[in-house]
């Protein structure tokens, strides 16, 4: 499973990355988390508000920081 965290590195982006790592760890999912900081690539992915989260190319959230529980739900649905 590929999880992408989109954001140029502001506080909210870091929180999203932290929550995502936490969710992956709690579930023990086999997931690769990549952080995408380039604005060009963020927009190419269709993210118009940062931070954004996509799992296997599917946008799950943008412009907010989802909780660990919420990210776990998305990961489980993909497993």
């Amino acid at each position, binding site marked *: 499973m590929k999880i992408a965290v989109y954001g140029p590195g502001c506080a909210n982006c870091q*929180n999203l990355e932290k929550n995502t790592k936490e969710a992956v760890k709690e579930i023990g999912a086999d997931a690769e988390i990549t952080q995408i900081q380039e604005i060009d690539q963020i927009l190419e992915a269709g993210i118009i508000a940062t931070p954004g989260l996509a799992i296997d190319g599917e946008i799950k959230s943008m412009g*907010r920081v989802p909780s660990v529980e919420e990210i776990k739900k998305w990961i489980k649905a993909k497993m």
Partner: protein
Amino acid sequence: MVPDILQEAVNYLTYVLMGLDPASPLGSAVNFFIYDTIKILILLTVIIFAIAFFRSYISPLKVRKALGKRNEYIGNVIAALIGIITPFCSCSAVPLFIGFVESGVPLGVTFSFLIASPMINEVAIILLGGLVGWQITAIYIISGLFIAIIAGIIIGKLKLEGEVESYVYEMIEKIKAAEASGMTLEEDRQTLKERALSSRDYTIDLLKRITPYVIIAIGIGAIIHGYVPTDFLVTYVGANNPLAVPLAVLIGVPLYSNAAGIIPLVAVLIDKGIPLGTALAFMMAVTALSLPEMIILRKVLKPKLLAIFIATLAVSITAIGYLFNAIT
């Protein structure tokens, strides 16, 4: 009234338990510091959570969709109003700007949003209301909205679409290509519990980040409150100095601070007799315009449009400053 009980408790703590003299500068400063810090932190916690929860129903995609259908005027008004409740992390400025242009939001309407968003937000409103008073807060909100709407309409009328960097249009092509390849701009729906959890996390995180600034600013405010005589500031930047307003704007524009850092200071300046218009103009210049934001916006705006944006804002903020100095 909660604040009144709090004031009595703080009075008891500082004047009875700590034995400070209410008439002394130290007693006054300590009392002011403890009371304001507790009151502001309680207000911030409650309101930030409430707004975050409410905001979870207004996603960037919905905003974009709502504004894309609007023409000017009504669009400017709605954009400015949405700007109040939308958090605006300056790193989101570029993607939001491009996303707005892509979905056909008029340029002037986009600017109304960009101006209102950092200038008026829940943190600014609580701090102003709690430290200065709700009447002045209402004046701040209304004049801030007015500036965002008017400046947006002016920029819209100038037909500056050509002054947007070509980068924006290149990016729009990429978004369109992504959409054509089957990617959907969809977000997952949140349950009530998830909204509450996210809002809780957001509140804790935001409080962690702004509390140090708030406490330092209230601390400086407390020292001014206790030790600086009222006449001191009024002599230099009082109503008699016609240059005070443009000077306040000039100092405020390059200064970078969020509402949390600047409002406790502005509150004390007003308390010490600085004219309301001058204080408002200073506060608006600090929050609405900042050097880092301009550098970020330069990526999407050509120098001419960026200069027009800064000038329009600076002039309207100065005008509001003079207006309130004249009528108060």
